[in-house]
């Protein structure tokens, strides 16, 4: 992969200097040129007002795959901590790395995040690329893409894993498009074909009705976003100090196209992060009226779970949309999912059928929800759910 400057077009305006995270452009005699620090990250391409900087297109067939070694995980930092999905990916990367006999590296962009590197070591990282800058404090597509593409082009990992969170999907798509890598979305299975030295990526399609296994034979790195809560993180190992590689970058605020003006977290407990909940109790059309969500809430409270909802109830305006589980709502993978009065339309099953344990309560014995349920109760939810609430309250020693 390469990048070059069409010197006759260059006006020497120096806007590319400001855009370059790696300080790898010099302007002499009103013409820009790359220094040997250039990583081909591509940050300067869109910064050039006259289109004088050209990124060469990567042709998969020309990629020498033997140049690419190692497994990378791109860290996501939430509220000053490594996101759970990052730890899960480190665990999976460790397993893949054993098969390939390569190290596991974590790319950790952020501001004042060096304290997180040790934790990454405990969970499986051999080394950490630490990229600290105040303009990386909050995730933004542009600077994160520039910095990470530079690192990938320079160090050439064979596999790059990113959590399939909203941030991860936003970032991974942009990186893959820039470097011409193959990217598989929202994987639920990853394994190594040791003979071919390829990553077998399995993901649900058509709302989980079909599984597809995808290979990326030629292009490198092989990139995947991975569904949170599917892979298992390792038991933390004390004394596993990762090697830390500091990556100095310069990121001029003026060269970053987007600006985060405000972040709003609603105070009401209503805004739950369904994706992170261990237990979800969901209500469907069987509730008959919006006020009957109280039955669901009581059970959720008794068992320490979050409240979910089917599309029908959200469309009817019974409950706000952020509770919606399913293809147009959220995809969840809790330890326990209790579906109350939900028939189990394909689009709902798509969002919850990979839950560890599913309980279905429905009056219709033929409802499709029973096909995915581990335990089913055919009956009136207005009787069964309160009885279950009582049973849990007893179980947990409350009156």
């Amino acid at each position, binding site marked *: 992969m390469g990048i070059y400057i069409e010197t006759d077009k260059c006006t020497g305006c120096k806007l590319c200097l400001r855009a370059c995270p790696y300080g790898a452009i010099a302007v002499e005699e009103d013409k820009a040129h790359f220094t040997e620090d250039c990583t081909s990250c591509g940050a300067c391409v869109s910064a050039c007002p006259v289109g004088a900087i050209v990124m060469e*297109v990567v042709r*998969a067939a020309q990629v020498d795959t033997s140049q690419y070694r190692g497994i990378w995980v791109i860290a996501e930092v939430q509220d000053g901590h490594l996101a759970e999905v990052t730890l899960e990916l480190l665990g999976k990367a460790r397993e893949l790395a054993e098969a390939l006999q390569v190290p596991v590296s974590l790319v950790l962009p952020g501001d004042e995040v060096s304290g997180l590197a040790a934790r990454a070591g405990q969970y499986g990282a051999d080394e950490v690329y630490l990229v600290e800058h105040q303009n990386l404090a909050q995730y933004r*597509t542009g600077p994160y*893409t520039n910095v990470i593409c530079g690192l990938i082009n320079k160090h050439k990992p064979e596999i790059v894993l990113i959590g399939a*969170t*909203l*941030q991860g*999907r*936003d970032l*991974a*798509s*942009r990186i*893959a*498009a820039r470097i011409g*890598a*193959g*990217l*598989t*979305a929202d994987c639920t299975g990853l394994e190594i074909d040791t003979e071919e030295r390829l990553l077998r990526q399995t993901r*649900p*399609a*058509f*709302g*989980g*009705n*079909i599984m*597809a*296994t*995808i*290979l*990326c*034979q030629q292009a490198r790195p092989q990139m995947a976003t991975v569904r949170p809560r599917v892979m298992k993180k390792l038991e933390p190992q004390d004394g596993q100090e990762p090697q830390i590689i500091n990556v100095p970058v310069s990121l001029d605020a003026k060269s970053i*196209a987007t600006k*985060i*003006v405000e*972040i*709003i*977290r*609603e105070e009401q407990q209503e*805004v739950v*992060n369904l*994706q992170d909940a261990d237990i979800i109790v969901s209500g469907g059309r069987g509730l008959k009226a919006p006020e009957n969500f109280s039955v669901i809430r009581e059970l959720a409270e008794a068992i320490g779970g979050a409240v979910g909802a089917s599309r029908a109830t959200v469309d009817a305006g019974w409950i706000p949309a952020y509770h919606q589980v399913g*293809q*147009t709502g959220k995809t969840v993978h809790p330890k*326990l999912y209790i579906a109350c009065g939900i028939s189990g339309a*394909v*689009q709902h099953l*798509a969002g919850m059928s990979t839950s560890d344990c599913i309980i279905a309560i429905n009056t219709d014995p033929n409802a499709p929800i*029973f*096909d*995915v349920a*581990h*335990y*089913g*109760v*055919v*009956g009136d939810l207005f009787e069964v759910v309160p*009885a279950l609430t*009582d*049973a849990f309250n007893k179980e947990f020693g409350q009156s």
Partner: protein
Amino acid sequence: MNIIVCIKQVPDTTEVAIDPETGTLIREGVPSIINPFDENAIEEGLRLVEKDGGKVTVLTMGPPQAEQALRQALAMGADEAILLCDRAFAGSDTLATSYALSRAIRKIGDFDLIICGKQAFDGDTAQVGPGLAEQLGIPQITYAIEVAVERKKLRVRRLLEDRFEITETRLPALITVVKQINEPRHAGLRGVMKARKADIPTWTAEDVDADPLRCGLNGSPTNVVKVFSPQRQHEGEILEGDTEEVALALVERLREAKVL
């Protein structure tokens, strides 16, 4: 303001049935629809233009029958529609798709804003929008739930897992929208009539000057090597009897299975 809305025609999954024998999708006779999130994208484009003037061009890449989806968008009120259709595009993954769309958009020329749905119903990847923004070298703001344009500045409220984020950027830019951003309108009779007569140009790979090596299977680094139905790993147990006993039995099962 010139707005381009990229849409995809998908099978209507709410109508999709599963073959009980094979456990696979029965696709025959399944109607095609505009990807639901893309309907929100069209609606948002129409609203922005109604407010500030300009026009909405709808673009799709697909087989000849994808023209139906474009007519539907025209019936909703879009000003123009373009079908990107060529055998050379067959088998495109998200990278090749975003490349092809970027070529068509360069041919369209002037634009201020590109709107896509957050993801498609059939593939669920959410990769084409950001990939397209990258191919065009413009900023992206994903998961928009509220959009405002003031002069050349775009202000977007994003719906994230557990928070809202308000982000600004300059135009031209690309956004992807979530379902909660609006309620797509139904096409009126006049719109339907107009759409029926509308001329929809079909552009080939050559028309948009696309590099054949970056299109279709040639330009797709990922390959689907196996498709299978998900294994059911368990047989469900139906609990019967007195409600209270059933409730206690459930708690017992959960304890045994170490779910609690």
